[in-house]
Structure formats: C-alpha cells, structure tokens
C-alpha cells in the first residue's frame, strides 16, 4: 500500500487561479512560474525520495553482500588478469583468459563435466522430488522417519561418502561385487564405481537430500483447493499434475535444478575421490590440479580464476533464466490470506510399493554407506570383506579418536562456525528473498545474482580471497580464527539459502503482507510477524542444510586453518592424508552419529514450528 502510494503519480497541476487584470498578469505569471518551479522541485524531491525509499532495502542488503560476495569476487577477477595470478603482484595480462578460453581440452572437460552435472542433478532431482511428494502429499506410513533419514546422507562428508562407495562397489574388493560374484558365480565383477555412471550415481545420491529439502516446503504449501478444483473440472490425475501441480512447483523445481546443476559443475569431493585416480577428470578436479599440482610451485590462480569466470557466466545465465521463469510470480502463489488445506493423496495398493521403494532407497543411499564406513572403522587396516577380516575387527580406531586431545576443541570450533554460518545465511537469505521476490526495489535482480554467485567459485578460491580481505583490514583481525571460516561458509552457502527461500517466497501471496501493512505494521514488523512465520519450514530447512554442510565443509576450512581454528573435517582429512583410513572411518562414524543427533533435534524443532505455523 505504502509503495503504491509512493509509486502513484505525484500531482503537479497548476494550482494558480486565473486572473484577467493585465497589470497583475505579469506578477501572477511570475508567481505561477515560481509556484510551478516550487511544485516541480517538490515533485522531484518526492520522486527521488520515493526511489530512495524503494531502493533502501537493496542498499541495506548491498552492504553485506558487497562485503561478503563482491569484494572476494572482484579480487578473484583481478587475479585472472595478473601475470602471476596473485592479487597484489604488478602487471596486467589477458594470457590466462586467452589460454583457458581457447584451450580445446578445457572445453572437452566442460562437456564431460556437463554430462556429469546433468546426470547427477537429474538423478538427485528425481529422487528428491519423488520422495518429497511421497512424504508430503501421500498417505505413506512413517513419513517423519523418512524425513529424518533423508537428511542422514547430508551428515556424511562427501569424500567419506565416496570412500564408502569404493568399499561397496570397487571392482575387485567391493563388498557388493564380491557378494554378487559369490552368489551368482560370475566370472567378473558386474559393477564398477570408477566410471562416469558410478560418479553420477554417488553424486546424485549425495545431492538428493538437498533437492528433497528444497521440494518439501513447496509440496507442503500447495493448496489442496487448487487440485480439487482441477479434479472437479474434470481433469484427470496426469492433467492435474501437468496443469496445476507442476506449475505451482516451478519455482522450487527451477531453483533446485539450477542449484544442483551448478553444484555438480563445481563439486570436487566425489569426482576427486572416485574419478581422479582413474583419469575421469572434470573441471573441478582440473582446478584442483592447477591449485595443488602446478609444476611452478605456486597455485595457478590466474588460470583458475579464468575458468571460474566461465562458470560464473553460466551461473548468471541460469540465474537470469530463473528470474525470467519467475517473472509471472503470481502464477505460483499457493499461500494466500485464505485458509488452505493440506491434501493427502491416498495411494491405495500403491502405498506398499511406494513404501518398499523408499525402503530400498534408504537401504542403498543411507544404510549401506554408513555400514561400509562402520565396517572400515573396525579394521586395523583397509581390507576387503572376508571372514578373515571379521576375525580382525577392533575398536582401537574409535578409542584412538575418542582419546585424541584435539577432539574437544575441534568439535567446539566446528559447532560455533556451523551455528554462526547457518544463522547468518538464514537471516540474510530471508531478507534477500523478501527484497528480490516481494519488492520492486531497483537492483533487486543484482542482489539475487550476487547471492547466487559464490556458487561459481570453489570454496578454496573464496578462502584465498578472504585471506587478502581480512589481512588488509587491520580493524577486523579475524584471520586465523574460527570467524574467518564462518564468514567463508556464510558466503559459500548464500547460494543455496537464497534459492530455497526465494522459491518459498514466490509461493506467498502479497495480500498477507498488504493486510499487515494496512493494519499499520511497518515493513520489518510485517517481515517478522507475517512473512517469517509463514516461511518457517523453508527457513528451518535452510538452517539445517547450512548447519550440516558447514559442519562437514573442508576446502575453505583447510586453507584458512591457523593454530587455533581447526575443525572436525580438517582433523578427519588429517587422518586420511596421513594414511589412516580406518581411523578416518572411525571419526566419520562419530561425526555422522553426532550430526544425526543434532539434525534430529533440529528436525524436531522444525516440525514443532511447522505445526505451530499451520495451526
């Protein structure tokens, strides 16, 4: 309402009364002219004030985004034009850009990476969406348990997930292959994790929980009245799905698809652990080689930044596409001021099939890798599954881990970083979502792109930029502390948070906010009392997601590691690189156990909050 008033044309009509006396005509004309000038001036002032008021949210959000995103990204872009790739080195060159962009091998890598990204995102989206639908919209039993179990794979750091799958599906020593050869008397192992299909499979499973978490709030918010109206109008189930449900899900689907696609384009852990040893090199592993194996002795920051620009361009294109898709935002509104109902679809006989399918998925995606890691943690050294190996199981690795004096400190560091990053991301993304989706503030599209942009840059590169930023600002002495890692995580995870919350925001009708404003609520009160409570499921999902990912994030934590800010993943990585896979597995088991506990608590709180919101 307030914005409508501000946007309305400001009357600038001539208020002077007509006069007929010739002698005063000039005076009156002069007065009129002055009056018109004054009116014009006031009009311009009001106009600029209106623009200022409209732009205020953008400006307020721009400050943290400039600090968190723009500054590091500018640093990285400048690095692309430095001969050495180091920000403060002298010189200017386009060599890195030219070399990278004209290298046919790089484009072949991109083609291969696109294959991987499309495959794993599609796989993750199908699983995540399918499960979200079953859990939220159907009458399957144990939906709450499935929700909790779906989050479990998120608790496992991706490189541990990769290790688990090599234990299960390695051609010669994989437990599943050994079992299949034994049971069916095969002459050769039927499965090979060290292939592109294997990579897509593991990455898809790893990303499925993210897709699930984006899609769950979207399904939850669909108003049953719309579906019922379609059915009453004679639409069949498929037609209703195509004409009603899918369009309503478009914001979440598009957001999830774009997010998953970009994540798969830049993800390193799983391609690094499974693809790298056998030469399935993707862009991310190529970037890793440029950073860590450059023969010059220094990372090839220039080359890496040049490659990151390509990814960033793709990301901007996808973001613009997303904005275009969302332009007709009203089409996706499902939460209005009117009461809405949650429609549960009875599956009839299909319910058992669905439940069995879910059980099979949980077994494959959750239980099997966790069992594989537990198995590995009980061995004195890495070995194939056998009766001989069973005789050697030991708790030594668990005891060694639990008696490590570094545990308490690293656990504390990890928790503080995860809590700070998840709260910061959730709050920032709520504001970003509100500005981008709800206002006509100039520059909101830029805010949207900025929030999505960090995804294009590997965490290691963002950490590199942060070294410059925080060493150059004497007042902010956070370099070498846990706070710089929290800042890095906040930056890195803004992308996910903004996609998820924007999608949920598109489903809220503006009339709820307008009603609040008409009742005299200021924008912040409206946001706090109306918008935020309605978005609780999405906000909680983002908080949980960021918390879990921050707790397990390795890349930037490793680069920003100082004397006192080691985190659990860096400890885990230390064991791994030091040739202690069994001890690494033991840490992973406790890591997953702890994270499961925390996630269960968070999930419980989320459910309670959601229940309170729905009532």
């Amino acid at each position, binding site marked *: 309402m307030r914005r409508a008033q501000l946007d309305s044309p400001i009357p600038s009509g001539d208020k002077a009364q007509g006069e007929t006396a010739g002698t005063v005509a000039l005076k009156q004309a002069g007065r009129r002219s002055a009056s018109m000038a004054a009116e014009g001036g006031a009009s311009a002032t009001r106009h600029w004030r209106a623009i200022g008021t409209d732009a205020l949210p953008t400006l307020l959000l721009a400050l943290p985004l400039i600090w968190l995103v723009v500054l590091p990204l500018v640093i990285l872009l400048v690095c692309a034009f430095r001969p050495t790739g180091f920000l403060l080195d002298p010189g200017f060159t386009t060599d890195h850009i030219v070399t990278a962009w004209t290298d046919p091998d790089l484009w072949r890598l991109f083609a291969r990476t696109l294959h991987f990204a499309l495959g794993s995102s599609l796989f993750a989206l199908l699983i995540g969406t399918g499960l979200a639908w079953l859990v939220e919209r159907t009458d399957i039993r144990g939906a709450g348990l499935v929700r909790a179990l779906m989050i479990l794979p998120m608790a496992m750091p991706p490189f541990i997930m990769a290790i688990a799958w090599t234990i299960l599906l390695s051609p010669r020593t994989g437990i599943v292959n050994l079992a299949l050869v034994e049971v069916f008397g095969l002459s050769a192992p039927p499965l090979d994790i060290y292939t592109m299909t294997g990579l897509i499979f593991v990455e898809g499973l790893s990303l499925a929980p993210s897709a699930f978490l984006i899609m769950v709030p979207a399904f939850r918010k669909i108003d049953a009245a719309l579906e019922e109206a379609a059915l009453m109008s004679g639409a069949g189930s498929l037609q209703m799905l195509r004409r009603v449900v899918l369009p309503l899900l478009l914001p979440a689907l598009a957001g999830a698809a774009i997010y998953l696609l970009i994540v798969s384009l830049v993800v390193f852990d799983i391609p690094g652990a499974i693809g790298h*040893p056998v030469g399935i090199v993707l862009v991310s592993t190529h970037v890793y080689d440029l950073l*860590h194996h450059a023969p010059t002795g220094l990372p090839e920051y220039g080359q890496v930044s040049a490659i990151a620009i390509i990814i960033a361009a793709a990301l901007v294109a996808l973001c613009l596409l997303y904005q275009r898709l969302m332009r007709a935002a009203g089409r996706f509104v499902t939460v209005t001021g009117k009461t809405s109902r949650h429609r549960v679809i009875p599956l009839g006989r299909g319910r058992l099939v669905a439940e069995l399918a879910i059980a099979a998925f949980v077994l494959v995606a959750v239980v099997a890798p966790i069992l594989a890691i537990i198995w590995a943690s009980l061995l004195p050294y890495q070995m194939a599954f056998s009766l001989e190996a069973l005789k050697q199981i030991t708790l030594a690795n668990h005891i060694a881990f639990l008696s490590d004096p570094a545990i308490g400190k690293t656990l504390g560091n990890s928790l503080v970083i995860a809590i700070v990053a998840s709260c910061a991301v959730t709050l920032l993304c709520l504001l970003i979502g509100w500005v981008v989706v709800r206002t006509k503030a100039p520059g909101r599209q830029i805010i949207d792109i900025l929030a999505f942009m960090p995804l294009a840059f590997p965490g290691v590169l963002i950490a*590199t930029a942060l070294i410059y930023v925080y060493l150059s600002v004497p007042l902010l002495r956070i370099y070498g502390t846990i706070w710089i890692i929290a800042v890095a995580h906040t930056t890195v995870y803004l992308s996910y948070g903004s996609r998820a919350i924007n999608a949920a925001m598109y489903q809220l009708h503006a009339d709820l906010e307008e009603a609040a404003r008409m009742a005299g609520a200021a924008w912040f009160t409206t946001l706090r009392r109306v918008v935020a409570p309605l978005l609780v499921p999405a906000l909680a999902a983002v908080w949980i997601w960021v918390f879990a990912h921050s707790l397990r994030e390795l890349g930037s934590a490793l680069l920003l*590691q100082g004397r006192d800010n080691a985190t659990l993943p860096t400890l885990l990585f230390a064991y791994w690189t030091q040739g202690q896979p069994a001890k690494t597995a033991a840490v992973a088991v406790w890591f997953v156990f702890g994270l499961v506990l925390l996630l269960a608590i968070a999930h419980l709180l989320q459910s309670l909050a959601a229940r309170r919101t729905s009532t």
Partner: protein
Amino acid sequence: MSNPTLSRRGFVAAAGTTLASTALTTMPFGARAQGAAPKALVDLAGAAAKKPPVVWSESSDTAAIAKVIAAFNKTWPDIKVEFIRDTGGGTLAAKVVQESQAGGTPAAVLTGDQSQFAVLDQRSLLVRPDWAALGVAPASVVSPFMVPTTSAIGVIVWNKQKVSEADRPKNLNDLLNPRWTGKAGAWLRTPVYVSMAHLMGEAEVRAHLQKFVSMQPKLYDSTYRLAQEIGTGEIEVGYGLTHSTLPVMAAGAPVEFAFTDPVGISTLYTCCVAKSANPEGAQVLAAWLAGREGADAYEAATGRGNPRVEGSNAAKLVAGRKLSEYPLTDYPTFLRLLADYNKIMSARGAAR
C-alpha cells in the same frame, strides 16, 4: 644390484632403533648439543627466545610434529614453536606470498619441495643464512635458502597375497608388463619420476610414463592411498614411497616394497621466511632439523627420514644404493620435466 625387501619385522626393528636412538640422543645429548652449538646458532637462539613463537607449517600430521617440537625443545627450551598443518601442495608457498603482500605475518618455517621455495626465494621472501656457520653438515649445505629435511624415496610396492616374490616387478619398467594392465598404480605427482630421469634418462622415463598411462593405472593424489589399495588387493602393484608404505605394513596389510636400481628420491627441504615473526628461531629449527638429532626425531615421528644424514634410519635403508635425483643446480630442467611428466600423467583418462 640386489633388491632386498624390507619386511614388517625389519621395519618394526628399524623404527624401534630409531626411537631408541632418538631417546638416547635427545635426552642427555640435547643439553650438550646446545652447549656445543656454534656461536652463530646460540646467538640466534638468544634473539629468538625474546620473540613470538616460531610458526612451522608443513603437511605432516599435527600429533607427529608435536613430538618433533617436543624433541626440539629439549635442546632449545626457550624457543617456542607452534605448528600449522598445510596439506594443500602449492598453497604452502602461496599463503606466504599472500600474507606477506597483505601485511600479515607468515609462518616462519616451511617444509616442502624445492619448486615452492624457489619461487619464494625469487620474491626475496626467504632468509639466506650461512648454513655452515649454523653447524649444518657440508652434505646438507646444498642451497643458500633451504636445507634438506627429509626425502620421498621411490619403491616398487606389491600385494604379497596376490603377487608372488618371483612374479613381482623388480624395476620400474617391469610395471609395464601387460599382466599389470588395470592392476597397477602410482603417485599422480611426478617428482620421483623426474629424479629417476637423472640416471635413467629423460627420454626413457618419458617413454615409460607414456606406456604406463596407456595401461589404465590408478593414479593417486596420496601415496598413502596407493599403499592402502595395494593392501586391499584393489590394485596389485605400484610405484610408491617408503614412508607411506611402511605404516600400511605396520598395520598388518599384506604389502611389501623393494628398491629399484637406481633409487629415485625427492628431497623435501626446510626454509625460513624473512617476514615472519621469528626468523631467528626459524633458522635454529631448520638447522636442528638438518642435523642428526632433528632428523632422527622427525623420522621417528613422521616415518620420513633424511638419507643425507649419516646414521639416520633412512640413510641405512638406502645405504649402498645408487640414488637418483636431479641436482638443485639444474633446477630449470627439473621444472621442465615436472611439467612434461605431469602432463603425461594427466592424459591417463584417455586410456579408459
């Protein structure tokens, strides 16, 4: 030359000897070492004691380096040392450049490979001490800005349950036998291959690598993982390193290793950073690491030894063998070969 293997029992005995000798040398000898230290070193230590802790950065495990620092402090108790682990390859040197440029305080001591330290020296970021005056043995005075601390020693590794003693590869080129297609592995990084090129010849090593990558090997970022996968039987043979194979053997995995002829070694060095908070203490630590006491403590804690230090376990391991490593004086050739061989390794995917 024969290629005797090092059994698990042999390793345990050797490790025990190292630990015992470390204990013997560090306890009573520590105090004597400081008393007998060159004046230049004592002066540096005096200055270092008044400064902030020496920050040491390298890739070894924090717990292992804590033991090395404890041994160092028995000789130099007034110099405090703190450790930051950096496993990121080139990022060790990169962080020093970035921190120096941005006005931060970089780590004082770095242990890593020569390619990283050469670029730091070119940027005048390293101290160039008079190593001899600091008591470093002549064999270790090989560079003005760094001293040898430890070595990666290349060895043939195999799974003894899958491969018999008679069938195992004896030398690098034995890995090219077609029977190892899809069953062999190696380190993705090629500094040890570059070292081998010094005695084997550039072209021969290049030809070896080209043939090797066509055999669908698994190439690992970490040689620890190489040794582990040989232990599980996922691959059967490989070209690995002693220090990453020994822990797998010690854990009981059915793994053995044997030296090639010649033995390719890649030395890791320690350097001192000029803009650090305590470059004096850094020099004391670097000199100590280059000596017998430091070498033994380092080897006992990390499993990595320094064959240049007479009497060290690593020196005993390679005693009487031909060692192949590109001389530091031919650094440009080293870099050229490293880039060349890395590129061959990166083409491994084409064989799949």
